[in-house]
């Protein structure tokens, strides 16, 4: 175990002394992120996320004040470029449309939603039946669906905030004897009318996310998509470079020398894998740290980001080991690794949002760690927490495990001693 650790640390030290590798691991993703941030206007204030015209179906069965207000949110000018709403009367048809991948999400506002929130004349002391707005999300378009859900969450939280504060204030006035229960009902109705007007507050249009637990609103930042995309693409370079070092050590004679020391093959291979993993984690954390400081980029909940990084590097390392196990020479790993880096970068959404790609490509993208990890990072940037990452983390860990097992079987058939 100690030797495995020592071999991993040695590999980490070696890669951080290789200038060419450092440029590709750290400088290239950073510069590409910077360049794409400039192109999209992130640094000039006219931010364009590259995510536009998210198709959303709105089924307003409520047809009263709050239902109409929510529907109106999606037609305000500030969201005109971001969302492309269509209106329907049929909730079942909307769900089918989502299942057929024609939109990112359907918002179904149930009949009586307004009355469930705002007490009607003569029913002020009755607890209304709780009705919920349904956001029927398309799992194939997690980013778009996440943004739609954020808008709805924002609307609901404002409505809820207004309702609770209003109720509390009126009850306190009744208890203190300042107003009678009849006057309280009238005050409640007045507050409700004001509440009907408030959800379309203009600030909503520029805040695309729900409040975080601390109450701080989070903006969706173009770099929150671009930076992880680039980092993940170059993570694939790192893992293939790390895998390449196994064959390079074989060619240089250091691997045979390790094999004649009192160190067994499992310790050596484990050490090499640990080195690749450690390097990948270090690369991701450095890029995340640098973009947080230099670009003021908010990646989201730190614990969740760290967990996702650990899972993403595990999944990517699996690919690195598989490529190495299949290759015969370090040069083969280098060329195949570079090709895989680019293909996975494109397929995984590093350049173009996956939601803008055909369904078949979206399906194929699931074999890449990039797609799963990018999905997770986007979720976190939109205010998600660790609990929202179960799917991408499970997928990444499963992917890594399967690929590692295949690689170990293939390595077993390879003669690592022969130069």
């Amino acid at each position, binding site marked *: 175990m100690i030797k495995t650790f020592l071999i991993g640390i040695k590999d980490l*030290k070696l890669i951080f002394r290789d200038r060419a590798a450092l440029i590709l691991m750290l400088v290239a993703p950073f510069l590409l992120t910077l360049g794409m941030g400039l192109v999209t206007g992130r640094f000039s204030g006219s931010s364009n996320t590259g995510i536009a015209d998210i198709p959303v179906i709105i089924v307003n069965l409520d047809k009263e004040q709050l239902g109409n207000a929510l529907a109106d949110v999606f037609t305000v000018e500030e969201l005109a470029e971001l969302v492309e709403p269509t209106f329907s009367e049929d909730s079942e048809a909307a769900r089918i449309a989502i299942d057929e991948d024609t939109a990112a999400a359907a918002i179904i506002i149930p009949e009586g939603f307004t009355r469930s929130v705002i007490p009607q004349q003569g029913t002020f002391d009755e607890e209304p039946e709780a009705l919920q707005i349904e956001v029927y999300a398309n799992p194939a378009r997690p980013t778009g669906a996440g943004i739609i859900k954020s808008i709805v969450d924002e609307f609901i939280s404002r409505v809820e905030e207004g309702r609770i504060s209003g109720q509390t204030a009126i009850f306190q006035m009744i208890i203190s004897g300042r107003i009678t229960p009849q006057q309280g009902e009238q005050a409640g109705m007045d507050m409700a009318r004001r509440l009907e007007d408030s959800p379309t507050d203009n600030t909503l249009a520029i805040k695309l996310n729900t409040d975080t637990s601390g109450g701080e609103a989070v903006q969706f930042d173009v770099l929150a998509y671009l930076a992880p995309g680039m980092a993940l693409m170059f993570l694939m370079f790192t893992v293939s470079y790390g895998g390449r070092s196994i064959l390079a050590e074989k060619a240089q004679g250091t691997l045979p*020398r390790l094999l004649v020391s*009192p160190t067994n093959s499992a310790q050596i291979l484990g050490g090499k894998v640990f080195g690749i993993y450690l390097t990948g984690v270090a690369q991701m954390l450095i890029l995340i740290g640098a973009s947080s400081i230099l670009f003021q980029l908010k990646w989201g909940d730190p614990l969740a980001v760290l967990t996702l990084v650990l899972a993403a590097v595990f999944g990517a390392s699996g690919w690195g080991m598989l490529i190495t196990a299949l290759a015969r020479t370090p040069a083969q790993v280098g060329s195949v690794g570079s090709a895989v880096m680019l293909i996975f970068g494109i397929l995984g959404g590093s350049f173009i949002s996956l939601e803008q790609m055909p369904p078949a490509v979206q399906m194929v993208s699931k074999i890449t760690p990039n797609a799963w990890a990018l999905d997770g990072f986007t979720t976190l940037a939109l205010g998600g927490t660790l609990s929202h990452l179960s799917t991408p983390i499970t997928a990444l860990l499963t992917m890594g495990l399967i690929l590692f097992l295949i690689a170990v079987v293939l390595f077993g058939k390879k003669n690592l001693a022969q130069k």
Partner: protein
Amino acid sequence: MSNILEVQNLVKQYGDFTAVKGISFDIRDGEIFSLLGPNGAGKTTTISMLSTLYAPTSGDATIAGHSVKQKPMAVRNAIGVVPQDLALYEDLTARENLIFWGQMYGLSGKSLAARVDEVLEQIGLTDKAKDRVKTYSGGMKRRVNIGVGLLHKPNLLFMDEPTVGIDPQSRRAILDTVKDLNKQGMTVLYTTHYMEEAEELSHRVGIIDHGELIALGTRKELTRQVGQTETLILHIGENEDPEALVTALKDIDGVLEVNAIDHEIAVITHAAKDVLAPVVTKANERGIKIHSIDIREPNLEAVFLHLTGRALRD
């Protein structure tokens, strides 16, 4: 004196090709034993099997009482290996390399630091210990390569052609290091295709060719196999046909044997000075121009020539 290494019928096959054909020998505690043979003779394959890198196809060897097949980990603890090609991390310093390899041999803490300092002193690189290996000359790298093999003070050190491709000064330093190590009690298995190195260093020599151990003994024992003979080496022109001259030379009184390889003819005789004149006469009669003539006293080269009909460098 007990044997630290005993090899019994060791065989290594790669498909239809047999690299090592059932060799057997032993090495006594405290001696320098050289395996002498041309490139491709099977020296490195033999060391690779003895160091547990390759599994033998058949046969076995014991090192410090441990079978290379049954107890490879115990064997690895007992041996140090200096591979033919440099096996170092060039982006690490000499000290970092020695520390890493020392850790792989189970050294740690203060004992590792002290041992690294000793080895650096021994290989003469204390002043350069903090420089990365990639900045070193070929000879300095070779010294670090040897230093790695010494870290854990092995009972038996395998050195596989450690002087290949280096300048004479570094070569001299390495040969002196081997002798010093031996004086300190280390047993050494040294492979080389340089006859002079085997003669200078070894207590005993095994001559290996085409995977077979064709002779074994001290230098005296081996040269005795050739008898009290001398060899005349005639270097003839590239366009000359040696075959006609070989037949004529065999008729000269006192000539024991004649072999021709490319443009060299080896004439084995009891007294070179007695046959020199008739040899030159025979060549002149046939119009064959002799560029130069060497007279060689019996040595390991002659032994190899005697046993195989070829020079070591062929």
